[in-house]
């Protein structure tokens, strides 16, 4: 059987009471979640002015990622489809509010109110059709559309996700772009199979210098510093409208007089009619010709 929970059951069924408790009592998962949310918050690049922002946690589960948001002094509320996970969150007395909802049905929030959104290991669930009424494309469209509306201008959304394959990643990205987001995928530690983590960093509004996709973390033996921008980062910037056109490869290289003479000789040997060589051979025409 596959180890991907996405392939086993729909989220509201997979994360039942037992699984929800298991999830939150495993210190390994708690540690990973905290690390992921810390990095997601960092990619969110909120202005560092000490004012608490209102963030949305999509697929908040038992509030592990919300805890990180609270530690950073921001207000949040979370949405999740699994009641069992939310019950665990209640027991843990998270600071943010919890909403039982399905992100694939649209978020149902007022326009322009959120200062940012994060989501840890949740968005890939949208690619599954768990019920007969589910159509992944429509659900992705509803999700990204409603997210775009509820975010303020210039606000960011950061999703950590585990796409099953390249097609799934492209599907998610294309719907994000269609909703109007700019941004791309940041892959931390692309060469490590264990530490490799993907983040989808999206910004509301047209692309500009402020919507540049941040650089990824790479394996570095001496430090795990956050601002490592050197090295072989792997950024897939997708929506970048000012991308220069592909240069047409016209070079004068090789078309010298000797190249032309050689060519003519070759054509003559084939029996073609070729004008005789003169001092004008391979000269450029005057512009007024």
């Amino acid at each position, binding site marked *: 059987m596959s180890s991907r929970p996405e392939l086993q059951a729909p989220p509201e069924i997979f994360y039942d009471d037992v699984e929800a408790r298991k999830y939150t009592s495993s210190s390994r998962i708690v540690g990973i979640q905290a690390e992921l949310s810390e990095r997601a918050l960092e990619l969110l690049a909120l202005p560092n002015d000490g004012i608490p922002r209102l963030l949305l946690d999509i697929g908040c589960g038992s509030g592990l990622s919300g805890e990180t948001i609270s530690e950073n002094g921001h207000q949040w509320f979370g949405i999740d489809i699994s009641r069992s996970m939310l019950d665990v969150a209640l027991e843990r007395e998270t600071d943010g509010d919890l909403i039982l909802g399905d992100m694939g*049905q649209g978020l*149902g929030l007022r326009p322009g*109110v959120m200062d940012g959104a994060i989501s840890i290991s949740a968005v890939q669930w949208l690619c599954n059709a768990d019920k007969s009424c589910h159509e992944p494309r429509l659900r992705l469209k509803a999700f990204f559309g409603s997210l775009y509306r509820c975010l303020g201008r210039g606000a960011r959304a950061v999703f950590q996700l585990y796409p099953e394959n390249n097609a799934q990643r492209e599907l998610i990205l294309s719907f994000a772009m269609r909703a109007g987001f700019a941004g791309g995928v940041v892959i931390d530690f692309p060469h490590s199979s264990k530490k490799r983590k993907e983040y989808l960093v999206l910004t509301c509004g047209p692309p500009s210098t402020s919507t540049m996709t941040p650089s990824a973390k790479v394996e570095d033996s001496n430090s795990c510093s956050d601002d490592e921008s050197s090295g072989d980062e792997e950024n897939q910037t997708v929506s970048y409208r000012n991308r220069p056109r592909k240069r047409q490869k016209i070079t004068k290289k090789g078309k010298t007089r000797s190249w032309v003479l050689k060519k003519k000789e070759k054509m003559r040997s084939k029996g073609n009619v070729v004008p005789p060589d003169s001092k004008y051979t391979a000269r450029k025409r005057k512009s007024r010709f």
Partner: protein
Amino acid sequence: MRLLTHNMLSSNIKGVINGFPLRIEADNVVVKQVDFNPDFLKNMFSKIDWKALAEASKIMGYPELPDETPDHSILDSDDFLQKFHHALLELHLEEGALVCPETGRRFPVNKGIPNMLLHEDEV
């Protein structure tokens, strides 16, 4: 659920044009103390739909907020900020329901968690 969240939520049913504000049916309201942060309140003030907040806090048993949208200058008053803080962050709707203003669909609130899941025919 705090009124902050209530102020952001709207009904998401297919065909509903104005699903905001959701009407509150309060069965049980609890007050939880939260740290007072004037910076957050000032930042949120412009995003809050005031009428919905005043209305909701009245239903939750806290009629201290002015009905009309106050001027921005009122944010200097500490007294006002305290009231705003109390209404926005400390009043919790524990049990009750949210009702869509257009269709009358009830979204039950259980243990402080509103159930916003839609049925198949509402998507």
